[in-house]
């Protein structure tokens, strides 16, 4: 997508981009390059610089079952929570946009969860989903041993997915509702005059018109599921039990800052970067094509 009319004085154009370029060079590309360097070297235990080890760091990580487990956990987490958060938000926003009596209430309330810090809602959900107090405890009284995120990996994964999705339903809802409201009312009314029902209008008018939003949210949700999950994992499960929720970012943090294995953490960072960039390029190649910008 390009502008037809542009300005010709392109030196000024570049000047506008300079502050951003400086920032991303210093705080993004340099560290990223540094990560590449560290991933190819090994720090000497007693100082004295790094020694070149080539791809050994990658080899040792990729032959580590814990790491594959972490990748699988992250992908499962990203897929389920993104799907859940976007689907629920889409349904709620589409229904709110029908503007029945009382819809203002939903418009106000449904976006609250987005305001909450991930660690704060994680602490709240840790209490709500705790096996010995709070609400799942009631279920546990009926079926003893049914729920224990402290011992059962699936339960722990379910807990962090619930907490994350709960927040991002609010986020997606904001964007979906705004997109729905941007559709001119007259379009809907004209379609209704032609005799199309609510569902047909949704699929043939509203859905195509909000595809830019869906695309935007897909990119953001997947990225955030790798990133914003850190606080939730740190507060709710600390990566446990038995590494079931040891998502990639959490593993980088614990290996790098707790295990002080910078080279290993850097190599993991590189793999994660490649993974996310690949996912994004795929999305741009194959999904943006179906997006209709107005």
């Amino acid at each position: 997508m390009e502008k037809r009319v542009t300005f010709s004085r392109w030196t000024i154009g570049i000047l506008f981009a300079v502050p951003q370029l400086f920032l991303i060079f210093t705080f993004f590309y340099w560290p990223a390059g540094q990560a590449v360097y560290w991933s190819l070297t090994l720090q000497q235990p007693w100082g004295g610089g790094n020694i070149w080890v080539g791809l050994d760091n990658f080899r040792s990580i990729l032959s580590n079952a814990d790491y594959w487990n972490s990748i699988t956990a992250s992908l499962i987490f990203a897929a389920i929570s993104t799907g859940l958060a976007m689907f629920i938000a889409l349904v709620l926003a589409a229904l709110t946009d029908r503007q029945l009596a009382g819809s203002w209430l939903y418009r106000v309330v449904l976006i609250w969860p987005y305001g909450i810090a991930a660690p704060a809602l994680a602490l709240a959900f840790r209490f709500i989903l705790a096996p010995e107090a709070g609400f799942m405890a009631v279920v546990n009284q009926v079926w003893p041993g049914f729920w224990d995120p402290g011992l059962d990996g699936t339960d722990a994964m379910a807990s962090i997915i619930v907490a994350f999705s709960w927040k991002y339903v609010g986020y997606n809802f904001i964007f979906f509702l705004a997109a729905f409201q941007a559709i001119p009312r007259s379009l809907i009314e004209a379609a209704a005059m032609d005799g199309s029902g609510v569902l047909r209008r949704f699929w043939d008018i509203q859905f195509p018109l909000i595809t830019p939003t869906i695309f935007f949210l897909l990119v953001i949700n997947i990225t955030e599921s790798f990133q914003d999950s850190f606080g939730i994992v740190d507060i709710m499960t600390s990566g446990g039990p038995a590494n079931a929720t040891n998502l990639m970012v959490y593993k980088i943090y614990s290996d790098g800052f707790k295990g002080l294995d910078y080279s290993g953490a850097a190599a993991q960072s590189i793999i994660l970067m490649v993974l996310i960039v690949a996912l994004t390029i795929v999305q741009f190649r194959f999904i943006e094509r179906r997006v209709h910008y107005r």
Partner: protein
Amino acid sequence: MVERTPFLNFFTHLILFVGFVFCVAPFAIVAVAASHNLKDVNDVPMSLLPGSDFWVNIKTAWVTADLGPKLLNSFIMAFGVAAGKVIISALTAFSIVYFRYPGRMLIFWLIFITLMLPLEVRIVPTYAVVANVLEPYQTILDLTGLSWLIEKVSGVRVALSLGLLNSYSGLILPLVATATGTFLYRQFFLTVPDELTEAARMDGAGPLRFFIDVLLPLSRNNMAALGTIMFLWAWNQYLWPLLITTDQSHAMAVTELKQLIPNVGGAPEWHIAMAGTLIIMLPPMIVVVLMQRWFVRGLIATEK
């Protein structure tokens, strides 16, 4: 509403109401739990009627986690990030959308990739850069031999060093250095009709004038929306402040949450934990409620 659909309307209300309950329940549970005493909060099932210890618990949580100065720190950082993002993203998006210069697509992708790689991913090396923010430039000077040249010519040894650990700029700048806002502005600028640009150019306006007098006023809503979103995002940052503020005087409110997790083994003080959670979630909640209109209005496209 266009036509009468009583059956569908019923389900609309039903589904929305269920969504409403799921959305509000956690807030209600946190608030109620924060008002119980140690025994009641650990009852199974916990009573949903508020207890009487609300203010006592709030005070205990406030003192335990020393929340006063930490909330102030969070405010300063969140404002800084929001302002930085709103300004810098607008400039960049303008450059990318309205100019056609060699390497423009390269710049677009350079910036765009930052959106894909959040701070959390490159946390270890970014930490190293913030410890001495001029290190990249020093290294470049060393590698290109410029620092040797400067030393020869002027006799001054170049040793650039500026540590930003435990400082507001160290907290704020790396968080500004991503593309979130640029993406949002770009999407918006692309919807601005070309005729406006043509008209402005025909009236003799240069790029700067067009940017300030046409584009910025048009994107006022976008700015409010972006500012709000970024404020919340920055307030809710966790991992970065956790690493960068080793000094308690710069600690953020959100990072204090970890100290409120009840210890395994001891008496689980969930009432205090929930009171602290409530305090820390309150400021962003207020922002969401007050700025709500800006979200929706700002993100709505131009027509209607």
